[in-house]
């Protein structure tokens, strides 16, 4: 029994032990730098690997949902498709429009990918597995996430293409609008934990009652915060049903219309990595991070739990993409400012009330009732004013 528990502990820390083992080959003064480089290499290798896996999953999954086969020619069941895609995008000609602003056109995908990779620095993917444990880790993530908007603007503006510019303007307007509920809905987890550090937020959720975990999603404010966060995250990463910026039926492909070859692949990579990092933060904030869902399953390594949850999140996003139709621009903005913002502000108050109502069942009843009533009333009022008819135009008639 003793040997087996040591085995599971070592398996839990296998990547940390590997890092220390490789560090051991270098002189003392070089070891911190080598450790950092190793962690960065791991991040830069692991998440694009998941990206390759996700492209196949998404194409196969969407194929199933839309009653077709999806890719099935490269390798058994088409699982080698990402390799073919990668070789294709590397060998394709890189076309830059004649009137495009060459320097900004080149920089836009680079800035996007760098900014997105930086976000993974504060993401705890397992016990003792975080690149930097910043005191203001969550703030760092949102700051980095906000700077990706600029790269999208750069791409759209430098292409000198109407569709690109329209797509970029839509993307930036959408991302700014949904950044407010995204930030506000994550603040509840910070309020209850009392820290902006991602590691501390995960630790605060690591307890168990019986065999059930103390995840924030299992509280009224946590559940509301989680739902709001996921909706805002979908909009922030331009995923369906919020994929107006790249609506292929109206804008060709939005802000990356004029990109080809590997620069296009970089945009593709950047978008998917942004989705992984924001899903990772939803897991960290509300789903207990790398914690096991039941106390009896605690022997399974922490990193395995994190990546299992991440994969489940990705599958959920793919499922949504295959199911929901795209929103209209006015519906998008109405939803952000008239539903998401009031709900997330109310959720802040509810989280405060939860903190000060003390232990006992009364806070469960009060908090759930307030959120439920607000949800129903907001829905009623919004639907009442929503005259669902032909669209009326103010300027374009």
């Amino acid at each position, binding site marked *: 029994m003793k040997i087996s528990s040591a085995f599971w502990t070592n398996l839990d820390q296998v990547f940390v032990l590997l890092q220390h083992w490789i560090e051991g080959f270098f002189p003392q003064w070089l070891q911190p730098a080598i450790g950092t480089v190793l962690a960065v290499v791991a991040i830069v290798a692991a998440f694009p690997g998941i990206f390759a896996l996700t492209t196949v999953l998404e194409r196969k999954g969407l194929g199933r949902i839309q009653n077709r086969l999806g890719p099935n020619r490269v390798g058994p069941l088409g699982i080698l498709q990402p390799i073919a895609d990668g070789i294709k995008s590397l060998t394709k000609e890189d076309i830059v429009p004649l009137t495009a602003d060459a320097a900004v056109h080149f920089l836009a995908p680079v800035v996007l990918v760098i900014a997105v990779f930086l976000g993974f620095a504060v993401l705890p993917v397992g016990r003792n597995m975080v690149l930097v444990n910043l005191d203001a880790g969550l703030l760092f993530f949102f700051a980095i996430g906000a700077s990706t908007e600029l790269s999208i603007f*750069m791409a759209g503006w430098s292409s000198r293409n109407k569709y690109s510019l329209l797509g970029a303007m839509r993307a930036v307007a959408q991302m700014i609008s949904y950044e407010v509920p995204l930030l506000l809905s994550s603040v509840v987890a910070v309020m209850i934990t009392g820290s902006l550090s991602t590691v501390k937020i995960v630790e605060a959720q690591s307890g168990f009652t019986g065999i059930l975990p103390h995840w924030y999603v299992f509280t009224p404010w946590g559940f509301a915060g989680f739902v709001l966060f996921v909706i805002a995250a979908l909009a922030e990463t331009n995923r369906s049903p919020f994929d107006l910026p790249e609506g292929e039926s109206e804008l060709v492909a939005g802000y990356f219309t004029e990109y080809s070859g590997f620069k296009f692949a970089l945009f593709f990579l950047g978008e998917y990595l942004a989705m992984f990092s924001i899903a990772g933060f939803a897991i960290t904030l509300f789903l207990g991070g790398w914690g096991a869902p039941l106390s009896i399953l605690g022997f399974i390594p922490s990193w395995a739990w994190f990546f299992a949850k991440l994969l489940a999140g990705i599958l959920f996003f793919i499922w949504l993409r295959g199911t929901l139709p795209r929103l209209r621009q006015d519906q998008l903005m109405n939803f952000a400012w008239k539903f998401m913002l009031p709900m997330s502000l109310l959720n802040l108050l509810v989280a405060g009330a939860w903190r000060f109502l003390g232990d006992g069942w009364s806070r469960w009843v009060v908090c759930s009732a307030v959120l439920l009533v607000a949800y129903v009333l907001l829905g009623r009022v919004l639907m009442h004013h929503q005259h669902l008819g032909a669209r*009326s135009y103010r300027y374009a008639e």
Partner: protein
Amino acid sequence: MIFGLSIIFILTSILTVAGALAAALLKNLVHCALSLTVTFAGLALLYLQLDAQFAGFSQILVYIGAVAILVVFAILLTRGSGIPEYRNFSTSWFAGLAIAAGIFALLAWAVLKSLPTSVASAAPQVTVQQIGLALMSSYVLPLEIVAVLLTVALIGAVIVAMPESRDPKSNSTQGGAE
């Protein structure tokens, strides 16, 4: 260490100053705005070197995430972003120079006046939690005043953006969302 300054500090300062110079000297307005963003990022890096994590990240969140976007939007929505036809150097360059020199002299005087007489010991360790507690206790009145100001600005923006005539009849017959 060069002249008692660390190499990282020199690199970030060069980046910041180069961004600011480019913002002033480039011809294309959008290029100027993007160079200004480089300056904002350089300033954030300088804050981070001083162990001011909160200030550094807030700088990125507010200035790169919001102010830079606002600037490029303003450029695109007003004048277009092409290379301007008129000359970059206007006739009032002398007044501009005088104002710039005056502001520089004022700032330099303020900095020199506020220099500590002795070399400061280790920098104080300020955590985000301490900043939050200070904002909620001793600085709660300024915080509330800023909040009221921002709310007023938000409501003002909505009123400016609202359609001028709110005719209930046309609204109900036309239907649809605005």
